[in-house]
């Protein structure tokens, strides 16, 4: 007997739904085993997680608050991904957006126009930060994965440098925080919770991006570049322009996420603005296969993980890092499962030519 692997010509539709579901369950089991190993009952842990996210008003709004930035970083990764580019730098772009917004909030703008001005500057900062790897890729074919990632470290240390140094607040003791923003520089909140206006904007942006990339000729051009760069050139589409513009668009959205986090949540610039939302954008984009509407769904899954993760941390003292493990596992299972969408495996009992 031998195992025969054949390429599929057509893939049954149910496989596309089955694989993500099976992957999520498999990852839950795997992480459950890990929890069990360190002496936590996985069922207790998971129910705590679910209860904390859905059981209270605070939990539900918190789910939205954590989902929103993930939607944005998911978009920031998805758009360049449609053109075949890996924007691993959403984290750094988010930090630069946070920095620019905070700078405006703390030092520059007159009160009434401060919020829009913060948004504009944050978006510009994200764009600028993303344009560096974009231009380097377009001009020199410099690997965008490495360059975006290295720029993350630069951005994160830049913010750290600021909050430990020049922008360190006057009344924050030894914490790496800036001073609090004035009330004008804080996004409006609703329901007496941390649910802020940025959440709504995130959803609107996802829909807008969906329209942009599926309905417009720009979106079509991006798709061709992603599908076959050579054919795109032959079709008269400038691959370089698409590379730079998708990166910049992604950076703009990530930059806005940074503004949203400092203005909607922290109300100041601090080290660790984001617990790694930029990186979470990668599995989100993969899970969503680059479709912004699916990004919303995938972002909820990971938002739930973050809410649950912090619940588990407070209840059981489990490090939030477990969220990373889960993310990695889901994606690995899915891409492993992708194999079955492309190949059919059958067992041959009769040996050929024997």
């Amino acid at each position, binding site marked *: 007997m031998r195992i025969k692997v054949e390429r599929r010509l057509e893939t049954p539709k149910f496989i596309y739904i089955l694989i993500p579901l099976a992957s999520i369950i498999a990852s839950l089991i795997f992480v459950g085993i890990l929890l069990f190993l360190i002496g936590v009952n996985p069922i207790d842990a998971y129910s705590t997680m679910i209860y904390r996210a859905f059981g209270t008003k605070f939990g539900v709004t918190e789910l939205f608050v954590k989902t929103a930035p993930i939607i944005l970083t998911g978009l920031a990764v998805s758009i360049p991904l449609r053109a075949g580019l890996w924007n691993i730098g959403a984290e750094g772009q988010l930090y630069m957006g946070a920095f620019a917004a905070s700078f405006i909030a703390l030092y520059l703008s007159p009160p009434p126009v401060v919020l829009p001005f913060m948004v504009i500057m944050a978006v510009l900062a994200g764009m600028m930060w993303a344009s560096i790897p974009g231009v380097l890729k377009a001009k020199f074919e410099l690997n965008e994965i490495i360059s975006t990632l290295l720029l993350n470290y630069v951005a994160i240390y830049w913010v750290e440098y600021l909050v430990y140094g020049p922008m360190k607040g006057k009344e924050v003791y030894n914490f790496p925080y800036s001073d609090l923003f004035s009330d004008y520089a804080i996004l409006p909140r609703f329901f007496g919770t941390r649910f802020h206006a940025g959440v709504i904007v995130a959803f609107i942006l996802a829909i807008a991006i969906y329209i942009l990339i599926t309905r417009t000729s720009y979106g079509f051009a991006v798709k061709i570049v992603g599908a076959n760069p*050579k054919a795109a050139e*032959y079709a008269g589409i400038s691959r370089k322009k698409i590379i730079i513009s998708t990166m910049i668009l992604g950076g703009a959205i990530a930059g806005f996420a940074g503004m949203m986090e400092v203005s909607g949540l922290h109300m100041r610039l601090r080290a660790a603005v984001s617990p790694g939302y930029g990186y979470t954008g990668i599995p989100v984009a993969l899970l969503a296969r680059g479709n912004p509407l699916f990004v919303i769904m995938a972002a909820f899954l990971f938002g739930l993980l973050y809410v649950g993760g912090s619940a588990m941390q407070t209840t059981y003292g489990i490090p939030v890092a477990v969220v990373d493990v889960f993310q990695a596992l889901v994606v690995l299972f899915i891409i492993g499962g992708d194999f079955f969408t492309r190949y059919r495996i059958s067992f041959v009992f009769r040996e050929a030519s024997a």
Partner: protein
Amino acid sequence: MSLLLWQGGKGCNFYKLVEHYQGIEINMGNRKTKTERGWALQGENSDIILEMKNITKVFPGVVANDRVNLEVRRGEIHGLLGENGAGKTTLMSILYGLYRPDEGEIIFDGEKRVFSSPKDAIESGIGMVHQHFMLVNKMSALNNILLGYKTPGDPLLDYEWAREKIRSIIEVYGIDAELDERVINMSVGEEQRVEILKSLFRDVKLLILDEPTSVLTPIESERLFQALKRMSEKGLTVLFITHKLREALEVTDRITVLRKGRNVGTLITKRTDEKELARLMVGREIDMKIEKKRVEAGKDVLKLENVYARNDRGLMALKGISLSVREGEILGIAGVSGNGQKELEEVIIGLRPVEKGKILFNGEDITFSSVRKRTRLGISCIPENRIETGLAPSLTIEENLILRDYESFSRNGFMEFDMIEAHAEKLVEEYGIKTPSTKAPARTLSGGNIQRLIIARELSRNPLFLIASQPTRGLDIAGIDYVRRKLISLAEEGKAILLISEDLEEIVQISDRIAVIFEGEIRGIFDRENVDIDRIGLLMSGGADN
């Protein structure tokens, strides 16, 4: 021990071979004989070196080989003839251990074999020169020949020993190559010799050559045939895969014809002719005579003036090309691949920058215009590399049909999906693209239908000028016929066509004028009326035109 001569005058040069094979165990018929002096032939039956029985290979959706039988005699040059897609390459890939057959058995050198990888095939004495050379470009010829071979002192590499061995092979067979040169700097003919040396280095008994002349000039081909005949004289068996009747007749001793995955006959070359072979190969009498009506050529549509351009490696690939294509005419570019054809195509459609010189389109200077501008002016292109350049295989047929004009299918920046669908439905119908749905990914189409899709897209734009680069490569006879007729009718409508093809027959058949390209230069331009094939062949290989 007697040495039998088989196949007429061949085998007279046996003694050298005997030395070469001294002490090597060889298997013959069903017996294993350790011969004293090495080589012996005993009667007709023991002549068979290879038998492939009932070979079947099914790829999803295609039966590539359907119960194929093949019998090859020791020391002969055996032709394997068939159209593109007839299953020649699949059969040979099975023999070489690249694919596993679903059914059937292989008897090689008197023993039943199962080749599960090329390694097995090589170890049993089978060598293959693939259509696309399997060489590592950045390595020297010597390293390529040595690759994977255990020299004495393995895992260290004994270059001295290797050079010695190669030298003796060169002496015996007269196939030479610059051993220390990197493959990347070699001509195609030289690369092929390295490939052959690679096989001979492994002491093969059977050498398979897959379409070896498709990349060679007529002169290089002749040189190859001489070498093959020499090999056969020394007792090596050669399996020669081709779709060109004339070659098969010229160089082989026997010919097996494949059609649609089946063996439709094995013939003795001397007792057959072109007509019989063609009928077997295609399954019907074929009339490949297509006539292009002579249209009075109009004004220049495209004009290149002294154009220079570099290739991807930064070397000058076009060196002062001047030519013009006129309304209503097909200008054929004859030449062996790699002489600047690809660069010429790219320079005209705007993918490659012009170093020096001018390109005029209907009098307008477009030397520095973008691809999009040129497309809008009415330049269409059937690119040489259809799947890599002409298509986005993962996108749908609909999307691929608007690839080059997607902006005219949008309003205010938004795509008009109804229009796109209607457009696709119309073209699929009109050009006979066989597909269950216009929303299927283009990669699900067969080679012929992919070509139809590209032709549909490029012609439906109603262009003023078309470059068709290798437009019939890899198609079967019906497909070739379709494409050629399309090109002719387009020219007869008064459009200007630049036909780039390495198939000299095709060029001669449908062009009004023929330009010969060699090393980035146009070496001569002929009118159809006074075409001299020999002279074109000479110019193609860089010979001087007196």
